[in-house]
């Protein structure tokens, strides 16, 4: 079983800190989505994990071992990063080169070309491939050594709907078989369908990590005629309260029972109390600080306020 671990990883390019004190674990048997806006540090984190870039502080490991110390890296970790092929080389030869270097029999190349649906394009120059076909070639390269760990950067880019469905089925099957699947994607709806857990970065820092379904149920809608008083009470109790309207708060960080008890103790009437499941897109916007921009109110009276925990 191969856990992926990041421990206090920091990476700077000159004065610019790309990744700062990043610590999290990606568990086997799960599909873990790696989310963050452009420039959040996802690609750099992948490169540090794969020893393509060195961390200034901290370290990343695969099953407790640094990538460069793995005995058979191609049979341990399958990787899809940015497109890496010679445009004048055929897809089949691209895979044969990787197979040669890894000591993998060439018949495995033919199997994979069929698996990813590249049979017809395999003997054309990769420079003539569409984005989707290039992506399939990259996936074939990642799967060449039949590795228990997959690290994939935007694997769904350019794939058509059947391709995305095939990819989802493949990754789910890998995770179900005990594999570790770590996938970055900008296709949030796809991640919502695919991922069991998420790791979210913003500006090089870890924003949140955990079980996606738990994170999505993190909000509780509270209907009350006294939103300001209740917000203060709940914030004092350790929660976070967002004002949705004059009569509704969205509360995070407190169990539903405690919200009811706190309101009762303070003598604040409640007209409704219900868990809310947020879409991943809404949560992503909130995690990455885009909620204010996206929901920017048009008049001062409608200003949304938030009371942070003390």
């Amino acid at each position, binding site marked *: 079983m191969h856990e992926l671990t990041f421990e206090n990883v920091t990476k700077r390019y000159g004065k610019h800190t790309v990744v700062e004190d990043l610590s999290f674990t990606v568990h086997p048997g799960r599909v873990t989505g790696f989310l963050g806006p452009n420039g959040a540090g996802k690609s750099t984190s992948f490169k540090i994990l794969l020893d393509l870039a060195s961390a200034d502080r901290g370290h990343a490991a695969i099953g407790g071992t640094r990538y*460069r110390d793995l005995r058979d890296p191609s049979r341990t970790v399958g990787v899809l990063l940015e497109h890496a*092929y010679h445009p004048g080389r055929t897809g089949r030869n691209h895979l044969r080169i990787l197979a*040669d*270097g890894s000591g993998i029999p060439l018949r495995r190349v033919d199997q994979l070309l069929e698996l990813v649906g590249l049979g017809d394009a395999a003997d054309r120059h990769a420079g003539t491939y569409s984005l989707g076909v290039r992506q399939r070639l990259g996936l074939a390269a990642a799967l060449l050594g039949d590795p228990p760990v997959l690290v994939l950067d935007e694997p769904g880019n350019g794939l058509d709907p059947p391709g995305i469905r095939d990819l989802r089925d493949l990754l789910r099957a890998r995770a179900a078989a005990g594999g570790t699947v770590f996938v970055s994607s900008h296709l949030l709806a796809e991640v919502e369908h695919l991922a069991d857990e998420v790791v979210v970065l913003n500006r090089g820092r870890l924003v949140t990590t955990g079980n996606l379904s738990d994170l999505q149920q993190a909000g509780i809608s509270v209907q009350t005629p006294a939103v300001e008083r209740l917000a203060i009470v709940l914030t004092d109790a350790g929660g976070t309260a967002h004002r949705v309207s004059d009569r509704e708060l969205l509360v995070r960080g407190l169990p539903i029972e405690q919200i009811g008890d706190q309101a009762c103790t303070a003598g604040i009437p409640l007209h409704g109390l219900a868990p809310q499941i947020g879409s991943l897109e809404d949560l992503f916007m909130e995690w990455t600080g885009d909620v204010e921009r996206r929901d920017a109110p048009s008049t001062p009276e409608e200003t949304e306020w938030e009371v942070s925990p003390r």
Partner: protein
Amino acid sequence: MTWPRLVRAELRKISTTKLPWGFLAVLIVVAGLNGSVVIWGTDMDGSKTFISTALDQQSLMAFAANAMIGTGLFGAIAVAREFGHNTVVPTFLTCPRRYRAVLAQFTAITIVGGLLGLVGEALVIGAVAGALPFTDYGFLASADGVLQLLAASTWAGAAGALLGGGLGALVRNVGGAVTAAVVLLFIVPPLVVQLLSDAASWLPDALNRVVAGVATDPVSVPAALAALAAWAVIPAALGLLAIERRDVV
């Protein structure tokens, strides 16, 4: 068993693009030019004394200096394009001990560079031998002389490819690496001669003439071989060091 498979992968990398075939085409053109010179070329006085002795013919056929320049460009392109196309990423993922991957790549381009030098020399010798019957002179070079030419061009081709590969690893950009190879092999030597005339014997052109047996420089053949190897190994070592230390971005 990792080493042979890494070299095999690198050889497949080279053989599955048009790069070596392009260089082979250039060699055929160069050989054709040599044949044309034999048939139609003359000295200033209109005679053909430039092919009148065995040493003259051997000098005309000596391809080692050209081989070193040509394969220098080949090595520079072969290594630098890996960074341009990002194919260095799967290479280092397959073999994360980068020095091993790079040494395998250097080995492959050295083999192919040596082969290009050998083939280039063989084509030139063939073209000259084929053209001489159209003149008043026969093929005068001895078998030993021909063997020495072939060996010298093979050595020069290998050294040039390794030198170019080192520059490609240092510069990581095809245009920059080719420019660096041209500067090192074309522009630096005459400047060195201007500044340090004693160093002229240790420049690639003079060394290649010694190894090919067509010069009477004070440098011995073994010393010339070693010096040519140093011209190749130093940039290669610097390139290897740079790749070990840098991030792949």
